[in-house]
């Protein structure tokens, strides 16, 4: 079981969700984050003081999948989020030792989906 953590451009969320749905992935957890990466920040101005904003608004997706779903899911995320421009985002994969569905108490691979 793998946990996919993807950080994408906020306005690509709709596309990524659509592309994931096509790949049969509908379960996910989403949150708002700020990110610093290769993408350059921009200047803001407040009361005459200019300052650089370098933590940019991003959306983080967490998706737990069984191993056979890993590559299709990654592919779907990339398809939805890719524009070729800096700031497109990044995906990290980690290993899940155990999954529990709270409602039923089911564990393991059965609990993921």
């Amino acid at each position, binding site marked *: 079981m793998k946990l996919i953590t993807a950080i994408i451009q906020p306005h690509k969320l709709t596309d990524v969700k659509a592309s994931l749905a096509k790949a049969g992935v509908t379960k996910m957890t989403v949150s708002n984050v700020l990110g610093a990466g290769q993408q350059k920040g*921009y*200047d*803001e101005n407040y009361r005459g003081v*200019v300052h650089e904003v370098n933590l940019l608004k991003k959306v983080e997706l967490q998706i737990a999948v069984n191993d056979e779903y890993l590559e299709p899911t990654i592919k779907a995320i990339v398809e939805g989020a890719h524009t070729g421009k800096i700031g497109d985002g990044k995906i990290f994969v980690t290993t899940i030792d155990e999954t529990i569905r709270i409602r039923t108490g089911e564990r393991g691979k059965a609990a993921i989906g």
Partner: protein
Amino acid sequence: MANLMKYFSMEKLISSVLILTALWAFPLSLSAQETPAPAAETAAPATAEEEVPAITTETLAYTVDNLILFLAAVLVLFMQAGFAMVTAGLNAAKNTVNVLYKSVMDVSIGVLVFWLIGYGLMYPGADFAGGFFGFAGFGVPDGSGVVGDRATLHPQVDFLFQAAFAATAATIVAGAMAGRLKFYIYVIYSIVLTGFIYPISGMWKWGGGWLNTLGFHDFAGSILVHSVGGFAGLAGAIILGPRIGKFAPDGKPQVLAGHSLTMAALGAFILWIGWYGFNPGSNLHFTGDANIHAVMTIATNTTLAAVAGAVVTMIVTWTAYGKPELSMTLNGLLAGLVGITAGCDSVTNPEAMLIGGIAGILVVLGVKLLDKLKIDDPVGAFPVHGVNGIWGGIAVGIFGADKNLGAQLIGSLVVPLYAFAAMFVIFFVLHKLFNIRVSREEELKGLDVGEHKEEAYKGFQIFTID
């Protein structure tokens, strides 16, 4: 030409033009006006104790009329806060600074331009009675030496009241075009609208022009103010095109939700309150039995139309969508107010409720219509002010005390058409020249960062990130 001019140089150009205009306006008008008589000084408490001749009832009537008109002007100016809150609340947080900025400038630019040009265009004087166009000259008379009686308004308060109306028309347009317009384009069209478009059609009726001669009745501006703003906004919304994501690829309308219905509701309440300056104030005179009867009837009719609009919209959304919907109901309240504005002086209480109630239905249909036509008007400026402006104009022909349906139909069609056509041409030309819409990326990130390098809620995090 768009190739010749770069974006940045354009902004600089605008700034320069504004500065030059300002510099030119001052000496010009400085010479045009005389130093005011130090009236206030002689009127100060100390000197009031001197022996002065008895005050007459005519002077008192003049006093009361002008003071109430001043208070009405203050209420109408307060509406700008209402528009700001409604428009900000019904748009995304990322466009808040832009929306607020435009609200401040609607009235700031509006008042300056209306002082310089608009007032002279709108009230060109008796020579232009029955006409289409006239100009009384730049600036506003300072009113020194006015000897007041019941029939007199001091020009300074008359200007203030009328300028507040002009600013209203400009504000309505900004609402319809929120979320994707370049800010400097906004500055340009604002000057044109309050300086020329609005006062010219305003002159047709209130300046004694051809519509007045025709017997057209628009008491406080359903047509002259609201439909002008609503249709100018429609023209802008069409040329701009919808916000990204407003319509799905299959054409179905999507939700681009406002970020604070609290602000929107507060704004609607403030607009409502301001309308007590807008409608009753438009009686211009307040003294005596007939005026008091008129003003109090107007005030109550205004109230009844507003609440009927809100209640009917509640029922309509409840029936149509299964649940009563707030943002439409706020629009319904405002629609009732717009609808009664033309005829608030010449209908009965129940007729006012009926007019407001129908406005409450029309506003829902108007929103649906725009969705059908794939026109994106984030705050419902067209359904509220455009559709119900016309409804208000026609309603006078149906219910008004001296019905003249023909004149009403003519006025209620020609004026909005004129506003639409004039602004369509202006927006079209501006669009060809400069492309009036911000880039896709800027729109997605929000106009606050793009047009103002500033965010509305930066310190809202209880603790600071960045």
